[in-house]
């Protein structure tokens, strides 16, 4: 029981990372900007969840759209084989 309480308290203290796009002053995410997009995909080419990257909800939607557009024009892979 004690450990449970401790864990809960620790979770409550954890603060969210600031959104990297908002802090860098981005207005939009461009599908041609592959160097930026590559920071938000896994080694296998999957889109990383925002709980890991700290991207805000608004920018995660823009980012997802941009990654999918970049995949269509073969700038990014749909899936990277191991």
């Amino acid at each position, binding site marked *: 029981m004690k450990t449970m309480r401790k864990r809960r308290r620790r979770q409550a203290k954890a603060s969210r990372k600031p959104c*990297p796009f908002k*802090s860098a*002053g981005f207005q939009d995410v461009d599908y*041609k900007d592959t*160097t930026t997009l590559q920071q938000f995909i896994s080694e296998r080419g999957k889109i990383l969840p925002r709980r890991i990257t700290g991207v805000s909800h608004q920018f995660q939607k823009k980012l997802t759209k941009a990654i999918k*557009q970049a995949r269509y*024009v*073969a*700038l990014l892979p*749909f899936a990277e084989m191991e």
Partner: protein
Amino acid sequence: MTTKGKDQLYEGLYIISSQLSEEARGKVLKKITDAIEAEKGEIKNTIDMGRRKLAYEINGHREGHYYLVYFTLNTLKMAGQWKEYRLNEDLIRFMTTTADIVRENLDFKPLVAAEKEA
């Protein structure tokens, strides 16, 4: 009811086969831009993104030459352009999206450097 549509700024990304000669590639691009101008569209800017390796193979192509074209066109005329593009065998892939601004180059703000400053 008749709709006239409105002029919209578009950004078209075209991947042309890299197996073609520079001259032939130019002809393919000219065909695209001429088709836009024939529909009373206006070419605002064309950026040559160069030869790039495709992230995955498309119809046997591993490389392609990327071109970015900014143009204005009536919204009702766009579907007609896509029909033309699909018949063009030298055009590996295309994507047209609506745009807000006409880009002069493809220099993007780096995300990491900006983070360090903040």
